[in-house]
């Protein structure tokens, strides 16, 4: 594989950093590039779904298929942008500033996008059911899942036919706050 940082110039690093809203340090971007090159076996410039699935820990995650739709075929810049939602700085940012003041909170928007996988801009009952199905598998019946969802939705003031928007997500997930952090190993 060779020395990864020699193929990534300072300009490239700064461009990527800007694209991810400075949520990663330059060292972390270099480390992520090494990882990207390691996963992208034939240097195509993107990581295929198969290469993601060759990571056993990823493959056995219940939401791996939904996440694959989001990360399959991303180039390095977008790969970093996706992961920036999980950077320690993203969480810190939203701890320091009030949630309502941040236009889009990176971490919550990733969660929203996982639900709204077809990008309609709103999350329907069907989306909620699909994610719950991924998370519970054959250990809950379809009726049980629907029952649970209807119950919690009504308790929160929604109905079965409501469409949930990003702002609703932000509101619901605000308290007591979200911990979604991944550490990038820097040599």
């Amino acid at each position, binding site marked *: *594989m060779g*020395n990864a940082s020699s193929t990534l110039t300072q300009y490239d690093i700064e461009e990527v950093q800007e694209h991810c809203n400075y949520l990663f340090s330059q060292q972390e971007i270099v480390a*992520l590039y090494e*990882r990207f090159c*390691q*996963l992208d*076996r034939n240097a195509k410039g993107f990581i295929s779904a*198969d290469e*993601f*699935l*060759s*990571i*056993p*820990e*990823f*493959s*056995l*995650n*219940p*939401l*791996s298929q939904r*996440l694959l739709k989001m*990360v399959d075929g991303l180039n390095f810049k977008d790969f970093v942008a996706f*992961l920036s*939602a*999980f950077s320690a700085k993203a969480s810190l940012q939203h701890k320091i500033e009030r949630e309502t003041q941040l236009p889009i909170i990176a*971490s919550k928007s*990733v*969660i929203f996008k*996982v*639900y709204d996988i077809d990008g309609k801009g709103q999350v329907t009952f069907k989306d*909620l059911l699909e*994610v*719950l199905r991924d*998370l*519970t*598998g*054959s*250990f*809950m019946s379809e009726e*049980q899942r629907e029952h*649970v*969802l209807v*119950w*919690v*939705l009504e*308790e*929160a003031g*929604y109905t079965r036919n409501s469409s949930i928007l990003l702002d609703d*997500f932000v509101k*619901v*997930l605000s308290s007591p706050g*979200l*911990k*979604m*952090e*991944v*550490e*990038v*190993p820097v040599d």
Partner: protein
Amino acid sequence: MAEALGSSSAEMDLDRPNLEEYLPTDSIQDSPKNLHLRDLLDISPTLTEAAGAIVDDSFTRCFKSNPPEPWNWNIYLFPLWCLGVVVRYGILFPLRVAVLAIGWIVFFSAFFPVHFLLKGYPKWRRKLERKLVEMMCSVFVASWTGVVKYHGPRPSTRPHQVFVANHTSMIDFIILEQMTAFAVIMQKHPGWVGFIQKTILESVGCIWFNRTESKDRGVVGRKLREHVQGVDNNPLLIFPEGTCVNNHYTVMFKKGAFELGCAVCPIAIKYNKIFVDAFWNSKKQSFTMHLVRLMTSWAVVCDVWYLEPQYLRPGETPIEFAERVRDMISARAGLKKVPWDGYLKYFRPSPKHTERKQQIFAESILRRLERK
């Protein structure tokens, strides 16, 4: 090497101890509170695990070969390095190829006569063939200037024992074989390696298996047991990891070697990366290229420790036995243990683990639902 990918391929029954002990199962916290919308919408723990795996995972780390730090960066080191390259490629390499060629010629001219002429004297034939194979392996080791230090009592040739070692490259076998003629269990390879496997290694006693055939395991298990009982057979060497790992980690040992009802003698091998990294990444290069790389480096330095024979303890399962021996080898060679099966290089993990996570989550929801 054949790569079997995709969910359509046969599910591997990956036998292993409780993986949940190693993986985080914090997908849902055990809280007695009632169920709210937030609890269902908050998939952050699961997403964090997935993102964590994308950023760094303990399995891929086992097969990563870190490039050595360059040291040839200034005005006098660079010419020195260039001189070194000239010596290595221009003088050492041809010399070594010559040594290897002469070694092969001597070996074949002695082996085939012995093999055919001494058919009537099996004991003598076996003894001579063993010596010849040991000699050939020494020639190999010399061809990459192997500096091998052996520690511990040398293996003895007696029945009811099996040797296990950690696996970094096929040269592990050569290094061990030069000291003792082991019988070995191997994956069948194509090309010239396959030819050598078929002709020469048959004489020291070899058992073949095919990774991609799941029924193969029963057959192989039987052959192993038969071999271990035989008095005249060479001691059997097994690499229970089942694949080459980068010599910084050990992956899980397969239990096959540990349920034969005999003594298990662990061997730990640790390579010193000072001149060359001996890890053979079979996906990245062929064995020939790997050998060429070794032959164009200054030396291959390694330590081999023969450890104390171990027996299955009362009440211990073969998997626990395997883990215990893996602990010994990892501790001796300074390797870190990871809870993954080496075959995950070629196959996807069994859905059993995903199902376990789903079960935990589903049960916690149902439990809280009942409380309302």
